[in-house]
């Protein structure tokens, strides 16, 4: 499992923080730490978010950048926290695959 420290610049809209945390959770990342400073005019915010996951960080970065309120996301640092939990195969792409196909027992189109 890897940890990633992100620096985020965002519009300080009421929906911003909620969207950020929702997408982080939904895409399979856990929040390790979060801090936020609002600009003097209160219109923009800068955040430092550290997350951990078995998934590739680019998955989260791409999804965060799609959010209307998020202006910029940079990955400052990656820390290998502990040995990755290997599901079956060890390629990162496979890890994602295995995790993503577990919903497959549902009827077609269900």
């Amino acid at each position, binding site marked *: 499992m890897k940890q990633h420290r992100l620096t985020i610049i965002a519009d300080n809209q*009421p*929906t911003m923080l*909620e*969207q950020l945390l*929702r997408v982080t959770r*939904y895409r399979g990342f856990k929040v390790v730490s979060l801090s936020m400073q609002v600009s003097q005019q209160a219109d923009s915010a800068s955040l430092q978010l550290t997350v951990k996951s078995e998934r590739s960080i*680019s*998955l989260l970065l*791409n*999804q965060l*950048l*799609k*959010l*209307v309120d998020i202006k910029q996301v940079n990955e400052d640092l990656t820390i290998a926290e502990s040995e990755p939990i290997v599901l079956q*195969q060890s390629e990162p*792409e*496979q890890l*994602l*695959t295995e995790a*993503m*196909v577990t*919903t*497959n*027992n549902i*009827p*077609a*189109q*269900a």
Partner: protein
Amino acid sequence: MTGAGLTLEVLKQQGVDTIFGYPGGAIMPLYDAIYDSEVKHYLCRQEQGAAFAALGYAKASGKVGVCMATSGPGVTNLITGLADATADSVPVVAITGQVATPLMGTDAFQEIDVLGLSLAVTKHAFQVTDVEELELTLQKAFQIAISGRPGAVLVDIPKDIQLAAVKMKSILLKPFALPEVEPDAIEQARKLLELSKKPMAYVGGGVSLGGAVTELRDFLKCTGIPSVSTLKGLGAAGTSDDYLGMIGMHGAKASNLAVQSCDLLIAIGARFDDRVTGKLSEFAPDAQVIHLDIDPAELSKLKLADVSVLGDFKQTIPALEMKLNIEDWRQHCSAMSQEFRYQYVSNSDNPLTTIDAPSMLNELSQKLPENTVVTTDVGQHQMWVAQHMRFNEPRNLLTSGALGTMGFGLPAAIGAQLSRKEDCVVTVTGDGSFMMNIQELGTIKRFALPVKILLMDNTKLGMVRQWQRLFFEQRFSETDLSDNPDFVKLASAFDIVGETISSPAEVSAGIQRMLNATGAYLLHVKINEDQSVWPLVPPNTANQSMLEE
């Protein structure tokens, strides 16, 4: 003017002349403004119906669909439709009423946390708390809904903001610029194409959404590359011989086999959905991948692309045109396509006593007037439509792809009919799905819409039952609908003419009567409860390992 009046002015500025909705307390000022507005409001009979009508309107026309609902239960009813629109990348703007700002956050009557509820199923959601922000917010909503990969956007407007006085500034926002195409990516993709002996185009719904159907067809023609399609991409490749059919769980055998053996997969506006790829690690195992999309988050999301081409399909697809020398592969694909073609039994010479659903849909497909819009619900009938009907244009097939929402077909047909008044609109539905938004028969009646309804009645939740038969030891838990209502009587209560047919010999004439009808028509077709959709790739299985009849 008031906030409500301004809202309608912005709609007009955005070219909106049709909205679907349902009134209630918190949105009354807006409905009061609609009372003498030029914008035509169509009352649906449940907010979910309004959302799907807006979706059908948008998908069939390429314009933005607009729906409205009141606070609380009005919004919760809209949510499924907004989720469906976002999942299938359809531009929809939803405007919802909210309790007045001083009451917000007090659990007031019909108050619900709209942002909390909608952010997860929309591209974005806004709540306007200052009337001076209203115009810009509405403009932004349209801008976001149509830019890049489209989706649903919600604007929540508290009642006091609808009533507040405001001056219009006449702001007009254009769609965001699309990302620049990287010449490097094009060059790398062209190299892979040049080297490929067995290339395959995997076409998704994005091509039509990006307005690049012509570019795609030119590319396929110029290169001679065979193509397969996802459910949402049906119609994009046209009817050329090099088009092999749908891929995936219920894909054509030739399509799935060809993809499994290609050496270069060119994914265009498609996102490697699990219903398409089967077991992902074994999907197109020998292929390098070129992935073209407008949404950077889709590139390499599930399958690592060797070359990712981000940008407007109208630029990226033509940039890959070249002559290729792949005659052997083309012949191989076309021979497979011939060999595995479905053998239709003409309903008039069918020796069986029950109607063969695929053959009926094939006949319907051939008899439809040009530019007919077909909408479907979800289940076996949907897959049969995808397999056995031919579409010349993606906008002529409206179906709930990513979310697979039963209840989509009827309201989507209403929206489609209102966006394309001259065109024939047929909804193909199942007895389970039809009942999910049956109240919309009231909308058809009120506006005298000539929507044709082909109801395939197997007295079962057919698709779920098929899975119970195959994977749950025939334990048919809660999938029986043999006490269905009398559908023809039900339609007639809404002044809709209808008939029931049950034997193969009645099919041709039944279809003809339905298509000849000037008004709405219900063709209630009784089919065998045990007919299954074939082929079927079991979940988490490689696509070549399909089950067949």
